[in-house]
């Protein structure tokens, strides 16, 4: 039997897991959408084919993350989504547009297909930028100040760039020839911008955010916090070196940039998550303040412990089915 006081911790962990899985998985397919070229239909087709079988399930991790927030921390769900009312609505419209554009573009005449490609790209950009904006404004505790908005805007750019980076490394993994070369170029560029982005967050965040400053300078967390940027910068540096060597003969190492990016994602996310733990609304609500009744949490937890391994298993199965370089997108 799990003690009542531990339930919020477990649910915070589950929520963190679904957020990071979402950021990685939907991150790469949003990134592919952001990078979609509008002047090369063949490459656009290939790029969309590379995410075709996955995007739907990827997006479900967002539903799970928001769902867990709603289930486990309902009062935090209210505070956060009310504060982010307009940006979240804009993000939803972005997600709606790209989700449907994906299906419409395969089923309409050539002229309209181009328009749906534009909508797909636009929707991906809107969704990524508003997620970044929401993240930034969450980090700033939904403050109503110039610095907070500036930070949120910076964060919007940062997340869009980070998604483009993971999207381009996904394309390096899944494509070949011209498109792969193009993806390598994209990855080099976005990798450098991400480097600058992480650096500026590391400098700005403690300067403008009291809570973060205290956390980052107080042991034992300070030690961990010293490692995170170091690891990220080293990895991005190594990643850049790898990108310069690619593509290699028989395409070995094409998976390496993606893997490196995933590790960078995980480190950045942990750095961020531990900057606020145990707050679920920075400076206002802890996970214990916001948690639902224990009997409800327990009811969903037992189910989750059975179901989540199954979800992971058939997700792995699905990635294995579509392993290797992408083929033409063919609907059956």
């Amino acid at each position: 039997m799990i003690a009542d006081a531990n339930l919020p911790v477990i649910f915070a962990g589950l929520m963190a897991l679904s957020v990071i899985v979402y950021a990685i998985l939907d991150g790469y397919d949003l990134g592919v959408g952001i990078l979609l070229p509008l002047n090369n239909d063949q490459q656009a087709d290939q790029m969309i084919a590379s995410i075709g079988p996955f995007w739907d399930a990827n997006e479900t991790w967002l539903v799970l993350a928001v769902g867990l927030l709603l289930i486990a921390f309902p009062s935090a769900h209210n505070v956060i989504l009310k504060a982010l009312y307009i940006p979240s609505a804009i993000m939803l419209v972005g997600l709606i547009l790209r989700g449907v554009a994906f299906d419409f573009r395969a089923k309409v005449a050539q002229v309209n297909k181009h328009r749906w490609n534009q909508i797909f790209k636009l929707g991906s950009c809107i969704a990524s930028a508003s997620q970044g904006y929401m993240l930034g404004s969450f980090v700033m505790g939904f403050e109503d100040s110039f610095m907070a908005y500036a930070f949120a805007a910076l964060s919007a750019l940062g997340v869009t760039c980070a998604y483009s980076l993971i999207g381009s490394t996904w394309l390096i993994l899944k494509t070949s020839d011209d498109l792969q070369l193009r993806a390598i170029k994209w990855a080099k560029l976005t990798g450098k911008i991400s480097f600058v982005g992480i650096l500026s967050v590391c400098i700005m965040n403690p300067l403008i955010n009291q809570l973060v400053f205290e956390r980052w300078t107080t042991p034992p967390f300070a030690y961990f916090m010293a490692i995170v940027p170091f690891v990220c910068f080293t990895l991005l540096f190594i990643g850049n070196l790898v990108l310069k060597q690619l593509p290699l003969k028989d395409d070995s190492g094409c998976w390496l940039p993606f893997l490196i990016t995933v590790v960078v994602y995980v480190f950045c996310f942990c750095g961020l998550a531990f900057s606020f733990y145990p707050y679920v609304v920075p400076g206002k609500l802890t996970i214990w303040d916001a948690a639902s009744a224990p009997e409800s949490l327990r009811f969903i937890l037992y189910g989750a412990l059975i179901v989540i391994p199954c979800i992971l298993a058939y997700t792995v199965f699905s990635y294995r089915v579509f392993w290797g370089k992408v083929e033409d997108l063919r609907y059956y």
Partner: protein
Amino acid sequence: MADVFLLSRLQFATNISFHILFPSISIALGWFLFYFKVRFNISRHPVWMRIYRFWVKVFALTFALGVVSGITMSFQFGTNWPGYMETVGNIAGPLLGYEVLTAFFLEATFLGVMLFGIHRVPSWLHTLATLLVAVGTTISAFWIIALNSWMQTPAGYEMRDGVAHALDWWAIIFNPSFPYRLTHVLLASGLTASFLIAGISAYRIVRGDNKKAPRLALKTAVFVAAILVPLQIFVGDLHGLNTLENQPQKVAAMEGIWDTQKGVPLLLFAVPDEKNRTNHFELAIPNITSIILTHDPDGEVQGLNDFIGEHPPVAPLFYGFRIMIGTGMLMLIIAWFTSFKLIRNQPLSKGVLYSLIGMSFSGWIATLAGWYVTEIGRQPYLVSGLLKTSDAVTDIAPENVMFTFILYLSVYVGLLIAYLHTLFLMARRAVEIEEIQPEERLQQKHFPKTPNTTAGELS
């Protein structure tokens, strides 16, 4: 505050009305696809594969619209109805959570295999993926209807400090109205998908499609509809009796009964006047409502005047109920008449084909009308007897709610037009495509890439 209340209700109604259109097709269409695939596996006749291929594309499009409009709602619970989660979050949360965990991932993941994996997995596994998608959509319906029914007829909980706490999950899920509502909704989906398949197939035939696929699809769908309509009438009656037991004020509004009386007539038509608490222009058949509701011509039925201030607005329920029943009756006539023709091997006349085309979206009309009856019928409560809708609303600035309302509305109108346009476009394209020779298909184990066809062009 009244403005935010009205706008939030309008926004949620728009959202959920738009959303339900797509699951009401995809739940049953998933099972149709499974049936088509199994028929193909057994007979190896390529016509079943062609039917499958056409409808799997419709499924993909429908499913995508359902997913994206569904995500929106998981946000709105918190943004527009904070009081809802604050009061009943302990009940609603886990039910929604189980829907995500047991249904959403299952259907989304296997949808990928079902749509794009046919060359990459053995045939049996592809059939299994199709089955799992259908199972996923049905599980999803199970959880969300459990929650909706609990809001209608709450059970298995206790209130502590104004917050609902779960006592018995079994009683919460299998609350009094749940089995009836779930069956009613699943049958409604069956009918919606049947009439869509029949209607689009008829459209293809009218546009000069001489192939076998639309004829066989039409026949399958019409036969399914012919069986499901009477079942739905039977289940609908049981559901109505259950509602009478649990929510008598809702039934009174549906039937336009103001005073508690014996030997209640059935109002075929009337104009309910809530201000003067009476009906105008009544067209009635004596005693029928008493027979339907109490199975006794002189049975007593409670009227709205017993629930002053606690009953839903009468006109939307009264009209909504009649629209649903009327559509159902049309469905019965057309499904049986067409089945009769098909069984006797008579050719379908233009008139029949055009009626089927006209009925393509009849399921949507009946489904929406039915949902309006049951959801508006719960008012003024959000959760019957437990939480009033007006107590759950947000304090977000009205202009912000107005902004998002217009935003969603314009996106949805655009998408609905695009959806309908694309559906008929796909049908017209399918008309022009030559059938691939069955011999060359059957030689190969899986369904090979054919040189003359590309994505989205196979019939």
